[in-house]
Each structure stands twice: as structure tokens, then as C-alpha cells.
């Protein structure tokens, strides 16, 4: 009875916690796109192959210890080692090499339906969509793509190396200064997923994520049209005061809000900030309270952040700024 309890706890510890990472919005083993599906399949193939070899070695070891050596008189050791140690692994590895090479992005010659440019910044994501009209639609810290389309990401970085990874959709790809890397993904299931930076890039590397919204083509088209338009003018008195503060306290030197005089390029574009799901590159939910927190404790929320703290503003002012920003749908 007691043993049973202990065993159960052990099982939960070993598998429960271990497997928690294996499902949900950011698991490579719970795929929502073609590439991720193939990777997950490859993982299971390799895992079962390795499992079979492992079992075989265990059984062989057991047999060698358990039975007298005369039992194995029929086996020629040299040949046995040659077959299972040279020929088998060579063929296995060759097969895996061929299979995984086929999975490499670009190996398929599918034509991309759309292009999204993403630049890895310290510590956020600059995003721009090539709209059908030709001009780029600039956004940040969130990626929206239509399901059932092949999307080509053009990845780069101005200064240091990052890596762009949406585990449920496919493999990762480095963002290297001075280079443009191409990554093709084909999402299949609508939903909200999570992307991360997968290459250590500095203090706030772990605080550099982004939501990924996969939606139907129609929803996506409507969203892109909205994203392309200029910012909506503030509605409430608080938001109007917030806009005034935004222009007068220096925010506009770093941030762009299209349709206003804010044209800064250092920080993320905030034109439709209110329509995004998160604050601070995927780390806080986008609520007024969190925007205020971001403005007051920027460096605590995200160490080494490249935005100054505005804790000299009093609470009424941060509240108005938050009202303005969250209203930018």
C-alpha cells in the first residue's frame, strides 16, 4: 500500500512533470504545421529506433551474463560485431541522413504564398509583412499568418545573433547580422501559439518571445488591412492626454505611431499596439495595468532593456499613457 503511493508519486514526478512540456502552445511534439509534423514524426522514429537498439543491447547483456558461453558457440564474434557495429549503423545513419535532408527547408520547391520579414532586436522582434499592394506593413512582437498557406520568413538581425523558433510550426532558424536566412512554414491548424528566441543573445534572452496567431485567410486579410491603416485617434479624455504625453515625454523619439508625428525607429512600432496580445515581447498580457507596470518598472520587468524607465511620471500620467496605448487597436 505504502509502496504503491510512493510509486505513484515517482511516476508523476518522472512523467507528469516531464510530459507537461510536451503539449500545448509551445510544444514541438504537438504540431500545428507541416514542418513540425515531420519533425515530430522524425523524433518518434528516432526514439523508437534508439529504443529498439537499447532493448537489444540490454537483452544481449542479460543473455551473456545469464547463459553459459557454449550457448553462443554458433555465433562468430567478428562477424557479429561487423554486422551490428558497422553495417547496421552505417545503413541506419545513411537512411536518417537522406530522410532528414529531405525535410530541410528549401528542399521542397513549394512556392511561398506570402513573405514576412522579421528582425531580431535586443530584445524584441521587428516584423513587417509584404502586403499585396507592395509596400511593407510594419508591426512588432506578434506574428499573424493565415492557416494553409506557405509563409516564407526572411530573418535577419542588426547586431547580434538570435534564433527564430515557433516550436508547434517547425524548426528554428538563426537570425544573423548581415545575412538574410529563409524559413518556410506551413501552418495547418488555427490557434494562438508561442514563438521564442532560441539562441542565447544576452541578459533578456529568455524574455524575448512572441505570440503567433494562425487564423483563416479571410480573418488574416481583414487584420492586415487594419494593420496597414494609420492609428485610430484617441477617444477618451484620458487617452487624449496620453497621446499628448506620448509626444511630449520623449516616447516618439523611439516609437512610431503612424498617423501621428511619432516616427522613432529604435523601439517597436506601436501603431496598433492595442490590438496585440502582449507587452514587452511576449512577456506580459496586454492590459492597462501591465502597460503601466512596463512604463514604471521597465528594467525590472525586463533586465537590460533598451528603453529608459519612466518612473518620474506620476501615476495619473502612466495611466493616461496606458489608456492611449491600449486604445490603439
Amino acid at each position, binding site marked *: 500500500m505504502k509502496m504503491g503511493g510512493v510509486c505513484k508519486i515517482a511516476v508523476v514526478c518522472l512523467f507528469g512533470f516531464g510530459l507537461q512540456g510536451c503539449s500545448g502552445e509551445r510544444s514541438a511534439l504537438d504540431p500545428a504545421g507541416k514542418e513540425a509534423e515531420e519533425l515530430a514524426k522524425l523524433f518518434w522514429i528516432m526514439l523508437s529506433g534508439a529504443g529498439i537498439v537499447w532493448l537489444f543491447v540490454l537483452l544481449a547483456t542479460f543473455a551473456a551474463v545469464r547463459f553459459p558461453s557454449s550457448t553462443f558457440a554458433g555465433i562468430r564474434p567478428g562477424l557479429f560485431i561487423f554486422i551490428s557495429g*558497422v553495417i547496421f549503423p*552505417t545503413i541506419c545513419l*545513411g537512411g536518417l*541522413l*537522406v530522410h532528414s*535532408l*529531405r525535410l*530541410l*527547408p*528549401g*528542399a521542397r520547391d513549394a512556392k511561398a504564398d506570402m513573405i514576412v520579414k522579421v528582425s531580431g532586436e535586443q530584445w524584441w522582434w521587428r516584423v513587417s509583412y509584404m502586403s499585396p499592394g507592395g509596400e511593407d506593413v510594419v508591426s512588432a512582437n506578434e506574428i499573424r499568418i493565415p492557416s494553409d498557406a506557405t509563409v516564407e520568413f526572411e530573418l535577419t538581425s542588426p547586431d547580434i545573433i538570435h534564433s527564430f523558433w515557433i516550436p508547434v510550426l517547425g524548426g528554428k532558424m538563426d537570425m544573423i547580422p548581415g545575412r538574410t536566412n*529563409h524559413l518556410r512554414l506551413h501552418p495547418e491548424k488555427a490557434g494562438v501559439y508561442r514563438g521564442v528566441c532560441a539562441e542565447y543573445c544576452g541578459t533578456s534572452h529568455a524574455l524575448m518571445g512572441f505570440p503567433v496567431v494562425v487564423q483563416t485567410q479571410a480573418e488574416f486579410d481583414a487584420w492586415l488591412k487594419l494593420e496597414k491603416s494609420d492609428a485610430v485617434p484617441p477617444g477618451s479624455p484620458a487617452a487624449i492626454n496620453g497621446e499628448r504625453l506620448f509626444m511630449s515625454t520623449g516616447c516618439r523619439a523611439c516609437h512610431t505611431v503612424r498617423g501621428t508625428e511619432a516616427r522613432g525607429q529604435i523601439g517597436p512600432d506601436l501603431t496598433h499596439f492595442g490590438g496585440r496580445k502582449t507587452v514587452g515581447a511576449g512577456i506580459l498580457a496586454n492590459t492597462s495595468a501591465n502597460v503601466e507596470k512596463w512604463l514604471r518598472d521597465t528594467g525590472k520587468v525586463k533586465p537590460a532593456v533598451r528603453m529608459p524607465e519612466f518612473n518620474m511620471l506620476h501615476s495619473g500620467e502612466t495611466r493616461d499613457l496606458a489608456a492611449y496605448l491600449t486604445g490603439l487597436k
Partner: protein
Amino acid sequence: MTRETETGHNLWRMLAPLTIWALHFLACYVAAAILCAKYPQIADLSPLRHLIFLVTFLAVAGVAYIGFSTLRIWRYSLDGDLDYDHDTPEERHRFLAHVTLMLCALSVIGILYVAIPAAIIGSCR
């Protein structure tokens, strides 16, 4: 046929398969890198692929030639046992031949693995 068992086995015979592998590797990677860097708009290795296949064929043929001639020496040096632990010219030959054969096999595998990406992907991406 008489054979000078006293003279040393030429060590180059043993190193040749590895050398061919290394040269083949260099030739393939350097050629592909230059082509992809100079003509990124091609994004396609086709002009090079045939060259890579040819070089691969030559490399494998070279290693095979060394392998088969080594096999002859190895057979020649069989005197009923497979030992090579003793300090005799005859066993030294057998040992070196054995090592050379193994290296030939390894090199062929290496060369083919180097060529597989060109065969399957055939693009600069």
C-alpha cells in the same frame, strides 16, 4: 612470385584513402561555397552536381582500387592464422593491410555521405 617481406609497407598506401576523402570533401564544399556565394540568384547547384557526382565517382574508384590491391596483399600474407601480434614482417604486413582495408571502407562511407546532400538537396539554401 617473390615478395620482399623485409621492406617496409608504404605508409602512404594506408593514408591514401583518408587523403582522397579529405580532398573530395574540400573539392565539394569549396566549389559549392564559391558557386553559391558568387551566384546567389541561381540558388541551385545543378551545374555543379554533375561535377560533384564525377568527383565522387573518381574518389570512390580510387579508394576501391587501393582497397582491392590491399586485399591482395592481405590474402597473400595469410599463413593460416589471422594473428598480427607478433614482431615479424609477415604479421606487420597483415596488420597494415588490415588497417588500410578498414580505412578504405570508412573513406568510402565518408565520401558517399559527403555527396548525399548534393544528390538530394541540390540547392544553395
